[in-house]
């Protein structure tokens, strides 16, 4: 294993920027976001996690999927699907696992070329967690605080330096030329293991083996929902989208856009004639929770929640998916 001095991490990112577009955490107005780094951006390493999940760099909130003329004579894919090679720096283990969830959907039966082009052209440098945030519960799903697969490189904070572990050949190649990396010692590795173990030990663990949705606990919470859809938009694994055509009749050109959509939106399942197979707030809530905790495991052998806690921190009604999970396992 290798290690890099804390002060050298930004230098490493600058080295990478010569050949890659680099996405890294920056602090704007006191809030941490991931951003495609340009001149003048100040990278921060001091954060629990980003406010918005990394999914927007793979499945953007809105995206043009087709462009066409009014007559339909010419239809083109405007986005150049050979996207530039990117490095995503600082993604947390929970969010790496969330990308694996999105992958399983994007690769099932029909491949989603827009998502997969970005995904396949992006190397991930993950930053393991040594201190959990207030709403973190990755240990419930075993999606953190450490990471064994899914990223190309994994960094662990040792204080004045980071331990650097390559999980893939591409990860190894990425830093093989850099003189900023030195050999790590056994002591460094032990120190990292200890910090991760301490972090994991301080977090909640639940036995999901006997989980079943407790309908009563969901109904009570669902009634407080304010339809803001924050929980789904901010979620790193929520992948649902809507497709909308736009047409400028003056120029005769139009495009087909896709936008994030939310299953918490009453019209999500509504059809012509006002028929809606999903019954109200409770039905929508049940679907959201069951999708993550029952349908995803049955379909893709993976939980649709990674315990990042963003939906808990951002719910204006104070609804906590962790509470729902607790109710579901303690019955």
């Amino acid at each position: 294993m290798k290690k890099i001095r804390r002060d050298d991490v930004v230098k490493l990112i600058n080295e990478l920027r010569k050949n890659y577009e680099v996405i890294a955490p920056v602090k704007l107005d006191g809030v941490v976001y991931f951003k495609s780094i340009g001149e003048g951006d100040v990278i921060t390493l001091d954060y629990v996690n980003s406010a918005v999940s990394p999914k927007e760099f793979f499945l953007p909130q809105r995206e043009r999927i087709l462009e066409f003329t009014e007559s339909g004579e010419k239809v083109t894919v405007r986005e150049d699907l050979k996207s530039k090679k990117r490095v995503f720096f600082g993604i947390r283990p929970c969010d790496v696992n969330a990308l694996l969830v999105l992958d399983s959907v994007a690769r099932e039966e029909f491949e989603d070329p827009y998502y997969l082009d970005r995904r396949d052209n992006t190397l991930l440098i993950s930053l393991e967690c040594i201190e959990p945030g207030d709403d973190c519960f990755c240990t419930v799903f075993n999606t953190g605080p450490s990471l064994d697969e899914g990223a190309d490189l994994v960094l662990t904070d040792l204080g004045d330096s980071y331990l650097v572990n390559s999980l893939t050949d591409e990860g190894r190649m990425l830093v093989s030329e850099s003189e900023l990396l030195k050999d790590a010692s056994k002591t460094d590795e032990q120190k990292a293991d200890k910090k991760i173990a301490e972090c994991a030990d301080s977090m909640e663990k639940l036995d999901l083996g006997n989980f079943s949705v407790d309908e009563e606990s969901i109904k009570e919470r669902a009634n407080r929902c304010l339809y803001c859809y924050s929980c789904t938009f901010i979620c790193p694994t929520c992948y649902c989208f809507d497709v909308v055509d736009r047409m400028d009749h003056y120029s005769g050109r139009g495009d087909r856009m896709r936008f994030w959509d939310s299953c918490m939106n009453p019209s999500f399942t509504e059809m012509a004639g006002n028929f809606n197979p999903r019954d109200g707030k409770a039905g929508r809530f049940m679907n959201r929770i069951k999708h993550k905790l029952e349908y995803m495991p049955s379909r893709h052998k993976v939980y649709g929640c990674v315990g990042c806690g963003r939906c808990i921190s951002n719910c204006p009604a104070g609804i906590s998916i962790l509470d729902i999970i607790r109710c579901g396992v303690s019955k």
Partner: protein
Amino acid sequence: MSNPYIPKKVEILGVLDESRDVKTLRLDVRNSKHEPGQFMELSVFGYGEIPVSISSSPTLRDYIDLSVKNVGSVTSVVHEAEPGDIVGVRGPYGRGFPVKDVGGCDLLFIGGGIGLAPLRSFIDYIRDEREGFGDVSILYGARTADDMVFKQEFDDWRSMFDLHLIADMESSGWYGRVGFVNELLSDVSPDIKNTYAIVCGPSIMMKSVLKSLKDMQFPDEQIMLSFERRMKCGIGKCGHCNIGDRYVCIDGPVFRYDKVKGYREIWG
């Protein structure tokens, strides 16, 4: 990587008026290898894309039919389409009726309103491949006689199959039965051991037909239901059409009843 979101441009060969609010687009799609019961995503560029059942049989090699009820913003534009116009299509998608599994058996088709569209694809397939199937009964109901679709087929069907019609309401010129389509089940006496029931229509109709079929002791495994949901992508990505852990677009739209029984959102 091929891009499944790009529609193929096709010409409209003809537009047929089926009822006061249903039109069939006859599209220049040759040698379609669809299964009866599959659907296409139909694009009207600039207005949107909608999932539509293929209402023609795959035995017809020169075109496919998509029958569209005028109910929303895209379908109203579809209704303005004229022969020669270009639309986009993707598909065929989904799992259709299990044609091979039900071969040799008797078939009881039960349709409501525009729900006859996917059934017609299968019925016309049987018409053209008659020796592969047993007795066929078709029970069809619509709100009024004016809402019945594919009326031009009825004489043809009557000559080969057992056809029963019913309208929910009286209307001038209708001398047939009035009532709901499940009432027609008393007109037929299927050999239940050897019969598959194939049902498509509005949710409330399918629910009541299912109850009647269960009263007749039809096993769950012999009931095929074709569902409609608010599908956007048609390929299992957009998340709109799930019934439990199943997606109607890639696992359906046709489900054997035992495969979806018990899910809370089957009927709404």
